[in-house]
């Protein structure tokens, strides 16, 4: 009989020992760092290979890259920023591919760990995006960007003391925070969900009588793996689309 489910402590799920380098040092290298490096190399190689062949009828890597760039161009940039946002396409495409590949390691055997389930990755990406949309705002509107961002025109003067703090909080603090936390919490939740069902499967496998419900638990695990592939894609999409919306909001003063 099954008596109790030994769920591993959360540290065992997300903290990985260093492959080399002492713990806590800046050059320590563990699984998360390796996944990030792989994502960087795969993204660069994919675009390098696809960029070399310039055939009119694309196939292979060129086909994949051209259709995904087209997807981001039509589905994200033109929908949220319009034609003048096309020049920010390279940032958004690299963001999308980097997040997608670091997320998809959640279901790749022998890794089974989304790199974005540690806060550092999403936080850095969110800070990049934060700096990017402030820089775009400064470039397009000059120093008036900060005034336009916190005090939209058309607000009655009496309401300004209320509106300015709220707008300042939501534009410069809540935006990067929610970008980072959204990606982080989604990936961590998915990771914990998969671990829970894996632990359940192993426990049921050794339980004598309750082993008859093992197929149900295993089917759930397989189904959730498919679901997590979808979540990995969706989170990359949502991060990219929100980055596009934030950059687009810096292009012009709201009116």
């Amino acid at each position, binding site marked *: 009989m099954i008596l109790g489910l030994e769920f591993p402590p959360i540290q065992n799920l997300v903290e990985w020992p260093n492959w080399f380098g002492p713990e806590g040092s800046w050059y320590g290298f563990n699984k998360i760092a390796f996944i990030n490096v792989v994502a960087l190399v795969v993204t660069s190689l994919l675009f390098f290979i696809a960029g070399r062949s310039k055939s009119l009828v694309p196939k292979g890597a060129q086909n994949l890259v051209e259709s995904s760039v087209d997807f981001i161009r039509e*589905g994200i940039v033109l929908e949220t920023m319009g034609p003048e946002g096309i020049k920010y396409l390279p940032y958004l495409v690299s963001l999308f591919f980097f997040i997608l590949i670091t997320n998809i390691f959640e279901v790749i055997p022998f890794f089974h760990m989304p790199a974005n389930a540690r806060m550092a990755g999403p936080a850095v990406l969110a800070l990049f995006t934060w700096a990017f949309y402030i820089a775009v705002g400064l470039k397009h509107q000059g120093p008036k960007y900060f005034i336009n961002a916190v005090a939209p025109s058309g607000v009655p003067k009496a309401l300004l003391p209320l509106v300015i703090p709220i707008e300042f909080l939501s534009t410069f603090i809540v935006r990067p925070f929610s970008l980072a936390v959204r990606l982080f919490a989604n990936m961590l939740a998915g990771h914990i969900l998969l671990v829970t069902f894996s632990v359940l499967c192993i426990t049921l496998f050794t339980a004598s009588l309750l082993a008859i419900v093992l197929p149900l638990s295993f089917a759930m695990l397989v189904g959730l793996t498919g679901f997590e592939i979808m979540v990995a894609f969706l989170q990359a999409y949502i991060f990219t689309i929100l980055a596009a919306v934030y950059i687009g909001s810096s292009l012009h003063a709201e009116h």
Partner: protein
Amino acid sequence: MSILAQAAATAAEGLQKADYQAINGATNAGLAYGLAAIGPGIGIGYLVGQSVQAMARQPEAAGMVRTTMFLGIAFTEALALIGFVVFILLKFV
């Protein structure tokens, strides 16, 4: 019946302060996530329902509605995810 009560009493004596803290932490964590999930649950349901209605009424605007729907889901979902982070903090930290 008395055996059960006796067993419960022995079990209660065996609980240490750390156990009570663990019980409190688990209860509060469950409550925090449960409460945080109510609003976004209603919100996402309403949002997607309205989007489906919009897409059904105007199929040529489906692409635009879908983009906006994902945006809305992302904003609505944020509260539930902050609740999940609070759950992790209460339960494990």
